[in-house]
């Protein structure tokens, strides 16, 4: 990180700026005046705040985040399966503040794109030259009949890590052996495409090792899914008779849930669960809608070189909320997009053109502890859309030897250690 002193971005900066404007107008424009506000301190926003201080230490960066600590979704499936403590998922913002970012704990509730001003729930107003929204996803409560916030306290989604993760874990622990766990997976797009299948794998591992008379039913609104052959091969080898998936074509789409009876309703059946995990449809976090950067799909169209909104100038959207072409909604992708966006902002704020981007993604999943698989991708813009580079990327080989799988599991651990350190300092 840069050794630049921390800037409060407040009165001191304005005094400095006023002096600079009088004495050195050129330097003032090029150096001291730019203010960037970042909303959302997950893998996208937190990475961006720090990366921007590296790309141009003269930019005043303010990060607005509702929570005092971040709880990571990657590796939260291990928490659900009892393999890891939730505490290991939590990261604070001291490292980001130490990089010279002004960190405000608060909730952004309003955006005025004309005045270039963000308003927080407590009335604080923050002016910006460029705004970055990295709000992640909201559960689209109401999109699946019967599933609302109250129902989520009975049939947790656990698709935002934290209390929901803990709730699902406790329900599994309290379940009597012989129970049926039901997971419903949504249609695309949603956060972490392989996530439901890793979750099914690790819950099946928990059942196999702790409650072997129990079963897991995965009701899927899709036919095809990420790393499908690897998951299906792993399930056949590891969890026969325990894990069953029903695809869309076979009637897997859940059309309604009933929290009172913990039931999942499909076109042909009603499945009553001992433990029910509803992974519902999702959309961009609310502030994206408030700011006008989400389109009718609920997600945010962006320019792939700068991640600037195609709908509202001066606002950039990164991470799960963005429509990033072939890039999946993953922590790795959010981190990679944040760095591209940070360098693009440094260019735009000095009237330069952002460089042509080349992005990568790597997603690891565990079939069982020490048994890892991955998918990778490389992306370049094509006709304004981030597109897979042909001949690159793809999944781990099918039927890889156990040593290869063990190596991928170790790399997954190392990746998590790296990405959290790079994001939160």
């Amino acid at each position, binding site marked *: 990180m840069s050794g630049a002193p921390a800037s409060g971005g407040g009165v001191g900066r304005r005094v400095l700026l006023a002096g600079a404007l009088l004495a050195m107008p050129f*330097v003032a424009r*090029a*150096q001291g005046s730019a203010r960037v506000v970042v909303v959302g301190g997950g893998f996208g926003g937190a990475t961006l705040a720090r*990366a921007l201080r590296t*790309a*141009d*230490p*003269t930019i005043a960066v303010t990060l607005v985040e509702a929570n005092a600590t971040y709880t990571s979704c990657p590796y939260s499936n291990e928490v659900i399966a009892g393999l890891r403590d939730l505490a290991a998922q939590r990261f604070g913002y001291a490292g980001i503040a130490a990089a010279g970012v002004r960190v405000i704990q608060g909730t952004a509730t309003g955006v005025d794109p004309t005045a270039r001003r963000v308003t927080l729930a407590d009335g604080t107003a923050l002016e910006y030259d460029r705004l970055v929204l990295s709000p992640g996803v909201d559960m689209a409560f109401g999109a699946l009949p019967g599933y609302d916030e109250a129902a989520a306290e009975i049939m947790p989604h656990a698709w935002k890590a934290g209390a929901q993760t803990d709730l699902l874990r406790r329900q599994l622990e309290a379940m009597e052996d012989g129970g049926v766990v039901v997971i419903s997976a949504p249609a695309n797009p949603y956060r972490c495409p392989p996530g439901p299948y890793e979750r099914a794998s690790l819950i099946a591992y928990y059942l196999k090792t702790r409650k072997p008379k129990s079963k897991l039913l995965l009701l899927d609104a899709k036919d095809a899914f990420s790393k499908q052959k690897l998951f299906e091969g792993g399930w056949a080898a590891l969890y026969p008779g325990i894990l069953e998936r029903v695809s869309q074509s076979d009637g897997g789409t859940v059309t309604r849930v009933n929290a009172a009876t913990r039931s999942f309703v499909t076109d042909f059946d009603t499945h009553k669960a001992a433990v029910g995990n509803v992974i519902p449809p999702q959309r961009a976090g609310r502030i994206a809608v408030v700011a006008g950067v989400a389109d009718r799909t609920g997600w945010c169209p962006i320019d792939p070189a700068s991640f600037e909104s195609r709908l509202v100038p001066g606002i950039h959207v990164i991470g799960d909320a963005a429509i990033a072409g072939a890039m999946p909604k993953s922590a*790795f992708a959010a*981190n*990679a997009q944040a*760095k*591209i966006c940070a*360098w693009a902002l*440094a260019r735009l704020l*000095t009237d330069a053109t952002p*460089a*042509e*981007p*080349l*992005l*990568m993604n*790597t997603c690891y999943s565990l079939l069982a502890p020490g048994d890892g698989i*991955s998918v*990778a*991708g*490389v992306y370049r813009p094509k006709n304004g859309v981030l597109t897979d*580079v042909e*001949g*690159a*990327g*793809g999944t*781990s080989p099918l039927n890889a030897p156990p040593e*290869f799988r063990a*190596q*991928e599991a170790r*790399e997954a*651990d*190392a*990746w998590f*250690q*790296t*990405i959290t*350190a*790079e994001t939160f300092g």
Partner: protein
Amino acid sequence: MRGVVLAALLLLPPPGATNCSGCHAAGSGNVAINGRDAGELAGLMNSYRSGALASTAMGRLMKGLLPADIDAIAAWVSVQK
């Protein structure tokens, strides 16, 4: 101050370069790459790309780069701390 701007422009990451730290940031659990010799880094990346060196994810990722990308990325990473 102008020197700072100039240095920043010279250190502008070439396409693809900022992806590396997603797995190889300083002090990470994976192999450290920052500050290593550019020729050595480019040699490794090209070997992963061709398959001469076996790998898990690196080969799949490097196939998305051109030799010129690899040289530029290696040069940039070699001067990162």
